[in-house]
């Protein structure tokens, strides 16, 4: 997985605009471009794998059904990302997972399942160990934001309901904390 200079947000915006102008085939490309990111977002919102698949599917259906209501193609990543987060919230509420409020939270309220933590620790990597030590919110933010390059951080953070500026252009609290922990760890080979 390499992050290139090409912006996810820009490419998605272009494909979405083309799709709305009648190029239906662009939708396939858009789906292939964004689906992995949406998967990681759904998982970062604490969904089981099967539920994450359903939510990603549902969110695409909603985007297509409401394509006309997306004001600016540039916001399509944030739009569908927000839809994934809201759907994830709904699924978890219906499952009776502990959610204290009746409305989708403005901010992310991720409580990743313990499998997430176990997998990070069992990855046998220094990075995994230090990620596991972060708060669930920071972990969710970094997991989702890492799917794009710097121009995408704001849109990806927004899809999580995280304040713009939680990462990029400055480092932000979560990444600063992780970086400090890595710097202090002699087993971390600085890339």
């Amino acid at each position, binding site marked *: *997985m390499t992050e290139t200079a090409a912006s996810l947000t820009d490419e998605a915006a272009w494909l979405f605009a083309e799709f709305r102008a009648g190029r239906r085939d662009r939708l396939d490309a858009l789906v292939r471009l964004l689906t992995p990111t949406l998967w990681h977002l759904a998982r970062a919102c604490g969904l089981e794998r099967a539920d994450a698949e359903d939510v990603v599917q549902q969110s695409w259906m909603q985007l297509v059904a409401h394509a006309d209501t997306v004001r600016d193609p540039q916001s399509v990543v944030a739009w569908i990302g927000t839809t994934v987060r809201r759907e994830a919230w709904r699924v978890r509420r219906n499952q009776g997972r502990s959610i204290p409020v009746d409305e989708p939270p403005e901010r992310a309220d991720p409580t990743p399942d313990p499998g997430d933590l176990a997998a990070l620790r069992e990855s046998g990597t220094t990075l995994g160990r230090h990620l596991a030590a972060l708060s669930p919110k920071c972990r969710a933010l970094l997991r989702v934001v890492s799917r794009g390059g710097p121009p995408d951080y704001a849109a990806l953070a927004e899809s999580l309901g995280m304040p713009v500026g939680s990462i990029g*252009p400055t480092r932000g609290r979560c990444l600063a904390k992780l970086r400090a922990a890595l710097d202090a760890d002699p087993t971390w080979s600085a*890339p």
Partner: protein
Amino acid sequence: MSDTADERLDDRDGRILAGIAELYDEIDPPPARLADDVVFSLSLAALNAELASIERDAGVAVRAHAGTQTVTFSSSALQLMVTGSDENEGTMRIDAWVTGGGVTVELLEGTNSTPAVSDAHGRLVWRGVARGPIRFLIHPPGPDARPVLTPMIEL
């Protein structure tokens, strides 16, 4: 350790983030067929197909443990009856009857489609069908006829 949260992102941050993306793709990757499934579902939705219903009151309701199972689907304009029977290698043969001859019916397994055209008696057959969830997409003849999509079943 001073708080570096307000510093601008540098290349090293970029590499840490790339490492995070890579790590999550390793420990919790998206299912390989997820994007294909989404593309396929969207293409079905775009057909604006009518959804057929399963007839539950038919005497030939699904028999759980029998070698042969029959399900009937109906829509406003047509009916499709399908029967699955065991073949040798753990696969199934599916016989179907649809209202009318010359009707194209697609057997959908995941994102695979196997079309067949009904004969003059409305008969169709598929051989060597793997066990698992399937559904049918029926294309009634006529330029203005809406396609009909059945619910998913497992025979």
